Structure formats: C-alpha cells, structure tokens
C-alpha cells in the first residue's frame, strides 16, 4: 500500500507544533522569571528599607557624639535658630538652620558609593524647666535614606507598599525612615558612688543610703536622719523601708567594671556592674548579703574627664603652707584663685593647726552675703594633716559656695574639712584627669563629717570614717573606690541635676511612620 505523500503539509504542521511548544515553554519560563524577579525586587526593597533604619540610627549616634564632644570642649550647643546644626561634622560654634548629613558605606544592591546611603539629622535644644533646676534635653530627628535598586515596579503585594512607603515617584528612588530620639543629661552627682574600676567596701559596718534634703518628709531639717550606736535611724526618716515612707531605693552604687566587693556592707539601693557575675564559681560581685536592692550587671556610663580650668581672671599664687583666707565673688563673677601654674606646680599643704578658710567677700570692709562664690584651682596636691585647732584644716563659712579643682593628689585627714553649710551642694571638688599612666589618689579621712561632692574620674578614691561618725554626705565618683572603717555615705537625692553634665543618656526613641515625617523636636510641657 502506498500513501500519497504531502511533504509541504507535514513540514508546516511540525513547525506549528514546535512553535506552540516553544510558546508554552516560553510563557511558563517567563512567568517564572517574572515571579522570581518580583520576589527579588521585594527582597531588595525590604533590604534597603532595613538599611535606611540603620542609617537613621547612625545619624542619632552622630548627634550624640557631637554632644559628647561639646561636653569635652565645654561648648554644648545653645538655644538658637531651631533646629541646631553644625556646618562641619563636629562643632564649629556656628549654628545654621540646616541639618547635618552623614554618609555611610553602601555595599548592597543598587547604585554603590557613599551618596546612596546617608542620614540627615538635626539637634534641637529644649531647656526642661519642669524640674527644680533647668536641664538641657536634646531632640535628635534623623532621616535615613537609601537608594533603591532596580526599576519603578513595586512588589506584587500592595501590603509591602503600605508598610514600607517607598519613594518611587522621583528620578531618585529611595527608602527613607525617620527616627526621633531624645537625650537627657546625666550629672556628676547622680548616685552616691560611681567608678570606672572596681569598688571595694572593706567593712560590714559601712553603709550607703539616701535622703532628700529638699523633702521634709525624708530629712530632718535638711539633714540625714541620725543613727544610734547600733546604726539604727533615730526617727525613721529617709530610709526607703522605714514605716510610712515607702520610697524607691536611690542609693545605687555603680561601676563600669565587673568587680565589686560589697563586704556585706548595707547598701540601700542597687549594685550595678558591667558584666559582673554572682555565680558561686568565678563570682566578681561578692559579699552582697546586705544589699537591699538588686544586683544589675548591664551597667555602663562613661565618666567624662575633667580638664584644667583655663582662667584668664584668676588670682595666681605660689604654694600655700600657712593659714590663708579666700574670699568670694558674686554668682555671675565668682572669685577665682589658682595655686601654682603649669610650669611651676603649686601645692596646698596644711599641718600643725594651719587653716585655709573660704569666706564671704567684702563690700566697704564688711562681709557681703552676695559675694559667696569661690573657685580654687590647685595645680599640685591639696593635703591637710595633724590637729591643734577646734575647726578643721579647711573651713567653709556658712553661706559660701566653693568649687575646688585639684590636679594632683587630695588628702583631707587630720582635722579634715568642715563645711558649715551642712549641705553637699555647697562644695564641689573636681579631680583633673591625670595623663595616662599617672596615678592620682583622693583620700577623705578627716575627723569631721564631710558635706560635698567629689568627681575625680582619674583618681583612686579612698574614704575612711575617722573620728565621730565617719559620715560622708554627698556624691562620690572616682576611677576606683576603697571604703574602710565605719564609713557612711549618705547620698542627698536633691543633688541630682546639680554639678556638671558628665554624659547624655537616651530618654526616648520613636520611629515616625507618617509618610512625610512630622516631628520637630519641641517639648510640649
């Protein structure tokens, strides 16, 4: 049997079959490619959106770094054109109304280079006046921007667009996120005892508690409640767990190191360390049986260094070895005295009944109560020893406010220091941070009670209760701390907000999800 062949028809049908097959396969393959590409696009856009958050937070960190540099240079930004910004990456003192831009390295998909990932941030000063002492709160509004890879297309699901609010309309397609962060000042006087290195409370008779000299329900005539011979409060005022006074613990002692020997001392607050361990094996926070609060191990707070004063109007003298009286100036123009110079170090060394007195300035030969501010810079050591006087070796007349800067060692022993104000905020002692590798020691071991604050971030701090009660009323900060004897630290909560700003701490964080970003960094109340 023979079948008539029609080769032309067979060829055409084969071609059609091939074309149909290829078309079907191509459609399937293209659908797959489109799907995969859409997924890739979504991943890329989500990645850029995440990176925009990192960029925005980098702007916040840069703002905080600028504030900390301002602290170190004693040039915090002041209220001015709002918002405050600098024309260079670090403070130049010039304020403008524009934001500051920081560029970040971008290694992801999309156009590479620094210009593809950046943050614009503004710093706004808000003087918080709701508390007793006005405090500078700063608002940092930071907008992180990252360029988007690929074309204009969105992902297949509109929910992605709703969430991420990408900018696809302009020639430069971007993902942006806006962060508003608030930072508040941390003062040198916040807390009874802070150190960078280990704390050692070397006696179970030591105790650390707090009171509030501005609160009559938590102080006795502005003073901490006295204790009897057994260490019990006489009137139950001030103690956090005393009857009728259920107040939070405030006498927190803190170290940036993991080591703290509490020596079974009574601490009416928390013990904060940086990574300390309380486990039986390898414990670094030890003898904590009388800690009334918690042991917290995630603490860190930088201690800003203290630099030597640069005074142009100080009265400069040589070393002081005999009795001397420093008289005061006004609050706006305090009397400034400098002992020695950088080239010729000067010390104050008192013994054998010699006395340094801080007294009122005079007007027409009579003491003037308005002239009650004194600042003293000792370029060397400040030491008192011996006895022989009814007063201390250093005397502060009631009503006089004193700041003392010491570049060398400080040792108040013997008759020690008598502050007739009986308030801690009337005396501020600062230890000027020594060069690296240089040891500095601050010792307070006088016979009398000590009222004042000590901030010496480069000094080894030694407190030893001497005669009467060994009571130290105020706030104490050092590189390390060693307490001995019957030392009592009585922290005055009313100190918070006085002294110097040592750092800034984040107080608020919020991501503004409104498309255009609306926060301006102004305090409402």
């Amino acid at each position, binding site marked *: *049997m023979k*079948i008539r*062949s029609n080769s032309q028809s067979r060829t055409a049908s084969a071609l059609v079959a091939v074309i149909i*097959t290829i078309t*079907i*396969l191509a459609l*399937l*393959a293209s*659908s*797959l490619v489109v*799907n*995969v590409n*859409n*997924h890739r696009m*979504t*991943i890329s856009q*989500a990645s850029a*959106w*995440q990176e925009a958050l990192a960029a925005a937070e980098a702007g916040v960190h840069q703002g905080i770094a600028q504030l900390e540099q301002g602290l170190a240079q004693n040039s915090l930004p002041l209220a001015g054109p709002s918002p405050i910004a600098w024309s260079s990456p670090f403070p130049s003192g010039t304020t403008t109304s524009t934001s500051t831009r920081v560029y970040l390295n971008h290694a992801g998909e999309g156009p590479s280079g620094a210009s593809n990932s950046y943050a614009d941030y503004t710093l706004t000063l808000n003087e*918080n006046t*709701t*508390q007793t002492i006005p*405090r500078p*709160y700063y608002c940092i509004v930071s907008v992180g921007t990252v360029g988007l890879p690929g074309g204009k297309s969105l*992902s*297949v*699901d*509109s*929910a*992605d667009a*709703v*969430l*991420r609010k990408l900018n696809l309309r302009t020639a430069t397609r971007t993902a942006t996120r806006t962060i508003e962060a*608030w930072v*508040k000042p941390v003062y040198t006087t916040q807390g009874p005892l802070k150190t960078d290195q280990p704390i050692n409370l070397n006696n179970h008779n030591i105790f650390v508690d707090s009171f509030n000299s501005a609160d009559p329900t938590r102080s006795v005539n502005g003073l901490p409640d006295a204790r009897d011979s057994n260490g019990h409060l006489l009137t139950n005022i001030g103690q956090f767990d005393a009857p009728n006074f259920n107040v939070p613990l405030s006498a927190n002692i803190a170290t940036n190191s993991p080591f703290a020997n509490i020596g079974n001392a009574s601490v009416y607050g928390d013990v904060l360390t940086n990574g300390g361990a309380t486990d039986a094996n390898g414990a670094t926070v030890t003898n904590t049986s009388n800690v009334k609060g918690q042991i917290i191990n995630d603490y860190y707070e930088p201690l800003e260094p203290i630099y030597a004063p640069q005074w142009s109007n100080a009265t400069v003298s040589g070393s002081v070895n005999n009795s001397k009286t420093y008289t005061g100036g006004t609050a706006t123009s305090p009397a400034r005295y400098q002992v020695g110079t950088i080239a010729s170090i000067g010390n104050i060394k008192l013994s054998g009944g010699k006395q340094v007195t801080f007294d009122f300035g005079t007007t027409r030969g009579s003491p003037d109560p308005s002239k009650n501010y004194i600042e003293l810079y000792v370029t060397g050591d400040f030491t008192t020893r011996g006895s022989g006087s009814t007063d201390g070796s250093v005397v502060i007349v009631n009503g006089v406010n004193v700041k003392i800067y010491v570049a060398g060692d400080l040792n108040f022993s013997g008759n020690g220091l008598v502050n007739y104000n009986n308030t801690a905020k009337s005396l501020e002692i600062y230890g000027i941070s020594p060069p690296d590798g240089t040891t500095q020691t601050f010792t307070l071991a006088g016979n009398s009670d000590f009222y004042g604050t000590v901030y010496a971030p480069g000094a080894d701090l030694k407190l030893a209760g001497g005669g009467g009660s060994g009571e130290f009323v105020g706030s104490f900060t050092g590189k390390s701390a060693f307490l001995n004897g019957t030392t009592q630290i009585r922290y005055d909560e009313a100190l918070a907000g006085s002294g110097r700003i040592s750092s800034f*701490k*984040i*107080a*608020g*964080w*919020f*991501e*503004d*999800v*409104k*498309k255009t970003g*609306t*926060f*301006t*960094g*102004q*305090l*409402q*109340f």
Partner: protein
Amino acid sequence: MTLPEIMIALAILGIVLSVCYGSSVALQRGFASTTSWADARNSQLRVLDSLAADLRNATATSFTTSADGLTNTLPLTLTIPMRYQPNPSPSPAYETTGALAGDPARSALRVEPGVYATTGSMQYRDSSGQQVAIAVTYRYGASGTKRTIVRQIDWPYTAPPTSTLALSPPLPTAANTASREVGSFTNYSSASLSDPDNILKVTFTNDDMQLISSSDTAVVVRIEASPDSRHPEKKSVLNDTVFLREATFK
C-alpha cells in the same frame, strides 16, 4: 510510508508528547511551588518587619504563652505612645479603613513629648493633659482558605500623668479601632483553620530562648509557614532578633 513506519512514528510521537506533558506538569508544579514559597517568604518578611517596627516603639509588651508553655505567641499587645492627634479634631488620628488602616491619618498632627518632672523621663499627653497611648495587637485571622495575621490598633488609652498607663479594657467611649492584614498564608495542610500551627506559627522568646519577661529588652521572633502544597511538612522559617528601643530606656 509503510504501516510499520507510521506505527514507529506514532510511537515516537507518543513518547515525545508524554515527555512534553511531563515536563509541562513538572514546570507548572515548580512554578506553583516557587510562587507559593515566594509569596510566603514575602508575607513572612512583611510580618516580621511590621512586628519589628512596632516592637521598637513599644513601651510595654503583653505576649500570650503558647500551649506547651515554652514560648510566647500571638496574640501580642503592645503599648505605644500616641504620637499623632486628629486634624481637624473630630476626625480620627489614624486611618480607620482601607489599605492604610491603622497608619497615622494623612492630615494627623504630631504630639510632642514633655518631661515628667518626677522621673525625668519622656511623657506624651493629649490636649487635656492626660497621658495617652495606643494599643497595637497582632493576632491570627482567617480569610477564606487562608490563615492571616492581623494588625489592629485601638486608641486612645489615657491615664493621669502621675499614674502608670495601662491598657485596661474596656476602651473609653471615644474609642477608635482599625485593623488590616499584614500577611496571608494559604492553607495547604489538611488541618482546619482552627489549627494555626499547621499552617502558620509565630513564636517569641527572649535572647536566652526563654519566655519573655518585662525586663527583657530583646525579642527573638520566629515565623513558620508551610508554603508547599505537596509537602506541607516542609517549613519556611524566618527568624529575627528585635531590640526594644523604647522599653530599654525605662
């Protein structure tokens, strides 16, 4: 052409067609599988991003403990400062309907914070001086044959400045609510929608893989989905650790 030749040709054609058919079916299965995995991954990523954004802003969290007691799960309720206010006043501060439901209204105005004198911390108040917050709740939902995750917000919750602001039910009479789906997942398993764990499972732990406590400042979020219709036991898993910014500073 002889009969044997025709039979051989038909046999070859049959083989070719069956190969084509098989390839086509395999391609379609692959395509469907790729699509469902891609969709699931997109949804997981979106849910994770949405959760992370809200967790970072939260000042307080309230998780549900899972049935086995080992992890936290949905529903999750977050307390977030109310940073937007109506403009004009009678209108809602947040979109109540549509794709943007739960987002700040287009015309909404900002609410700036103040400093609470007693603690020195930031506080957010409305025009009458009351502290004000919104509740953001993530919960499982169902839509047809799909399992969804819904983000719902309720506002405003208020409290005097001297009190701790709590999301205590019921909502005040002026309450508003808005919700939208942030992710949907196809029910490929034989389980019903009432058994979400076979379709979709969201779990939370702290960074030590324990139940979350109020002092934790980081949350590990884990989302499991079953995107493969032929192998529902194969899970698509996405993890992320979210650091709670606002809660950390308290």
